[in-house]
């Protein structure tokens, strides 16, 4: 079975790496991490993602640009805010998002 592709965006490099590692702990999920908007938009154009996690440090202006760009490419994309930084909340957030119960 193909893994669920998840794009993780966060400004803090160590926290971003932690979140990627925790997402990848689930054998059904695969995370791609990006620290900048340019990298994130480039990755989104190259790959088909099911979910986008917006991590810490992303300014409101960037968040709006990213959301608008992703939705212009894929109207069905689910985008959520990840709170807590690679914490005990990550799995539940992803499960909730994949079932359509939370989204930005």
């Amino acid at each position, binding site marked *: 079975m193909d893994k669920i592709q998840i794009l993780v965006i*966060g*400004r*803090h490099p*160590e*926290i971003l790496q*932690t979140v990627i590692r925790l997402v990848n702990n689930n054998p059904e999920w695969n995370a791609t991490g990006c620290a900048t908007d340019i990298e994130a938009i480039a990755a989104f154009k190259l790959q088909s993602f099911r979910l986008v996690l917006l*991590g*810490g*440090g*992303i*300014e409101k202006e960037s968040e709006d640009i990213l959301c608008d760009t992703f939705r212009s490419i894929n109207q069905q994309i689910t985008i959520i*805010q990840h*709170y*807590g*930084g*690679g*914490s*005990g*909340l990550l*799995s*539940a957030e992803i*499960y*909730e998002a994949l*079932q359509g*119960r939370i989204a930005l």
Partner: protein
Amino acid sequence: MAQTVLHKAETRGHANHGWLNSYHTFSFANYYNPERMHFGALRVLNDDTVDPGMGFGKHPHDNMEIISIPLEGDLEHKDSMNNVAVIKNGDIQVMSAGTGVFHSEYNKDREQRVKFLQIWVFPDKKNVEPRYDQITLSADDRHNKLQQILSPNPDDAGVWIHQNAWFHLGKFDKGVNTEYNLKAKGNGVYVFNLSGDIKINDQLLNTRDGYGIWDTDKFTITAETDAEFLLMEVPMLS
């Protein structure tokens, strides 16, 4: 008409990692229950016991208000803001993770276990500058009355967080009752009963039961036995 939710103690999520025995009121780590995601802005209520000489290694957080209340024993705290501190029973610790912080929490004692509550509240502002604080509370100030231990206001009693939230502790003798008036419209209160039996209006809570109440301005608390409890008033969010 007030709305309520009852979480009996035995229905909480449970994870025993050997060194850490944790009960989760809301979904956390490997415990996932879509019906137990949060109570308004209150996202995590973990009832943790840490073995002697063990603890949480260095790990990150961002965008979360993290409150720790030790119930027994001492925890040593270290973080990436160069804070090194010990929190003891009677203290309350708060950390605004904001743009990102790393920390560790260890039970340095070789014999005594640490029991503490780990509480996470969604912030009302994202990407704030990380901060840490801890204070010592006077147990006398909650005997048969409510002691404010947290608020949104730096100048108010207790610690403060980036959220329109107020926490109170109470240690009531059997038969004592009081009324709690909510501080802000749109808020609800999650009651966590630490020990003994209490009633919130007509609802009996036993030890470690949780009870959320919202769409109301006030409620009564009655100690059915000698009891200790924590009230967490938080925005209900939409």
